[in-house]
């Protein structure tokens, strides 16, 4: 059985966290450049230029893209033939986060009421899926609080139309307004159950930005939602414009005959996702 050292997991998580915070993905930079071409608002274009320049400074000087270096969400695809040696998976991941955040902002409190900073940005939120194979794929998504706070979930009737779901998403975007730091990337989970829809919404954010779903009908729905969201006029930083979202990504899953869960996970333009397979 192939062995993967826990220390290797720690190193990988640490590297991914730092890369994510300093280097905005090329897919996001391309999406911002495309937005700059189609944005009509002058203030909006200036904001997009600031964001592109910000990404250049961050990468060059190894500075965090955003001061909110986030609560780290970790997606692990664990090959069922692999065996982790020399430590526990959760501890290895959190050790990696702790090392990565020594000189980054620590944004995690130990208790929702007592609110004492844990001082090393742990614990991370860790999602594990067991997959075929003998390797581990690790994805990290440091998630800022502003956009996360604008997220929402609703249990629709199973007879609901696509239009009702589109209206709900548009309404979420308008309610969030500038708070979620538009232009947004919107992750949507449809189906599953209450909790799984939220997981899918977050998982949808790990797809390459602007890459539509492989299923034609879902890809169409993504395009239609993006169009409707961009009609709101919210624009960059909510100051008005044509580009409110850069992309809408949807993931779906089978669900109960009585249910149609829909979760919307908002992501700001400072979309920091990096992955590696070991």
């Amino acid at each position, binding site marked *: 059985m192939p062995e993967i050292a826990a220390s290797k997991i720690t190193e990988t998580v640490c590297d991914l966290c730092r890369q994510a915070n300093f280097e905005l993905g090329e897919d996001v930079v391309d999406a911002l450049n495309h937005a700059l071409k189609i944005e*009509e*608002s002058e*203030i909006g274009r*200036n*904001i997009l230029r*600031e*964001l592109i*320049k*910000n*990404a250049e*400074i*961050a990468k060059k*000087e190894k*500075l*965090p*893209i*955003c*001061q*909110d*270096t986030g609560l780290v969400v970790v997606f692990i695809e664990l090959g069922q033939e692999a065996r982790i040696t020399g430590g526990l998976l959760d501890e290895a991941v959190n050790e990696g986060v702790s090392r990565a955040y020594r*000189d*980054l*902002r*620590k*944004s995690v409190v130990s208790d929702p009421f007592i*609110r004492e*900073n844990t*001082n090393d940005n742990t614990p991370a939120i860790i999602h594990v899926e067991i997959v075929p194979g003998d390797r581990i794929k690790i994805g990290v998504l440091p998630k*800022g*609080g*502003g956009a996360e*706070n604008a997220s929402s979930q609703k249990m629709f009737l199973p007879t609901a139309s696509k239009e009702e779901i589109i209206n709900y998403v548009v309404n979420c975007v308008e309610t969030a*307004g*500038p*708070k979620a*730091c538009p232009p947004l990337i919107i992750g949507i989970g449809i189906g599953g159950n209450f909790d799984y829809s939220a997981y899918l919404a977050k998982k949808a954010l790990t797809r390459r930005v602007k890459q539509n779903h492989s299923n034609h009908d879902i890809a169409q729905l993504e395009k239609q939602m993006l169009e409707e969201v961009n*009609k*709101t*006029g*919210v*624009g960059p*930083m*909510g*100051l*008005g*414009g*044509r580009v409110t979202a850069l992309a809408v990504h949807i993931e779906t899953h089978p669900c109960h005959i009585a249910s149609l869960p829909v979760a919307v996970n908002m992501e*700001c*333009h*400072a979309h920091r996702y990096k992955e590696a397979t070991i």
Partner: protein
Amino acid sequence: MKNVAVPLDDRTINDLKAGDEVLLSGTLYVARDAAHKRGIPVDLKNQVLFYAGPTPGKPIGSIGPTTASRMDPFTIPLLQKGLKGMIGKGARSAEVKEAIKKFKAVYFAATGGAAALLGKTVRSAEVVAYPELGPEAVLKIIVVNFPAIVAYDIYGGDAFAEGVKKYREA
């Protein structure tokens, strides 16, 4: 682009209109949720508060605006004591918007997530209260050419509402 000295005087405030793009230079105080809840132990007369929690660095790391509306429940008493400006992201409550007009203050929006770029405008930073709050400590910073947009002015102008109305398609 208007050059604006901070702290603010009345003449400067009278000239600022919602939608103006400005470059701020001078002293800002940095405070966010936890410091607002405890009370900001600084004389804020004529001063500008920047709602932010920076990353570590010298003189500072990355620093960008956080959501201003979370500070709304604490803002009116500060305006009564002479606070003249705030920098954050997002819209404010109707009450705060009205109070900004009444107490002749201004609310600036800075670009959320442009924190590496904004950090470059900071020349010095010192903790003035609550060091134990870490990223939520109160700081005094000196900035040069810090870019922002006038979101609310003393005339009731609202750059968010006006901007969105212009681009909204039914």
